[in-house]
């Protein structure tokens, strides 16, 4: 998945869950959005895991405070999954 596609998908998920206007990529911060409470945070995590076929750790869940953080964590998980897959195929 291209970087642009990842960013676009993230902003779509964030906008939908937090009911924001999807007006392109913006680094929304949790602190600035009252709506981004712990219920919505869990909904976001679930949607990200299902969409990108990844599993986040508790540290990653706790580290997400903005859209940029989501992008970092998603890329990290996708990279780890890629490395894991190539390790398996080289056995």
């Amino acid at each position, binding site marked *: 998945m291209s970087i642009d596609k990842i960013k676009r998908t993230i902003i779509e998920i964030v906008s939908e869950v937090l009911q924001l206007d999807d007006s392109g990529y913006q680094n929304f911060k949790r602190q600035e959005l*009252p709506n*981004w*409470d*712990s*219920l919505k945070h869990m*909904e976001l995590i679930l949607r990200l895991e299902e969409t990108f076929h990844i599993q986040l750790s508790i540290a990653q869940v*706790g580290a997400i405070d903005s859209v940029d953080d989501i992008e970092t964590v998603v890329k990290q998980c996708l990279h780890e999954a890629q490395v894991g897959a190539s390790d398996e195929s080289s056995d």
Partner: protein
Amino acid sequence: MNHQIKVDKFGIRLRPVTMKDANFIYDLRHDPKLSQYIGEFPQDRSIHLQWLRAYFLKDDDIYFIIELMDGTPVGTISIYDMTEQTGNWGRWIIKHPIPAAPASAWLIYYVAFDILQLPEVYTNTVSNNEHIVSFHDHCGLTRTAIQKGGLTIKNIDYDLVIHTAKRDDWPFIHAQLQGPAQTASRFLVNHR
């Protein structure tokens, strides 16, 4: 109150506070980030111990430790100022980054409505604590009042938002909390 209520669901347990929890509670309530929007607490540990001893003599107050299923304490929650008609739920503090909010809230409503059979409970939140105000809104609670300058923290008066939940609301609250609590439960099991 020296109660014996112990409940668990979604990877979280509420168990009665004991005097052995005194240091844990003190540290939690003095964590600058976690205690930003709660009532001020004595710095003097002996006053804290005195306060906790007095709690056990009260008959309108049940105080819980929120813990993981392996016994690791991660927070506190309680219902106080209880009458036969109502109770104030609060003292809700959870260590970062443990995602125990949905499960612990679910459990406190379970205690209030299914165990204690209270007709309603209410909760007071500092209006600036926007994520918690939003949390209660998303659970479907009704904002029943605003208490102007209801809490003073470090010489600043804050308004309190009062949210109320009636027993009839419990099925809706359950539905709102269940999904997020289930999602969070996987992280609670694998927290180490």
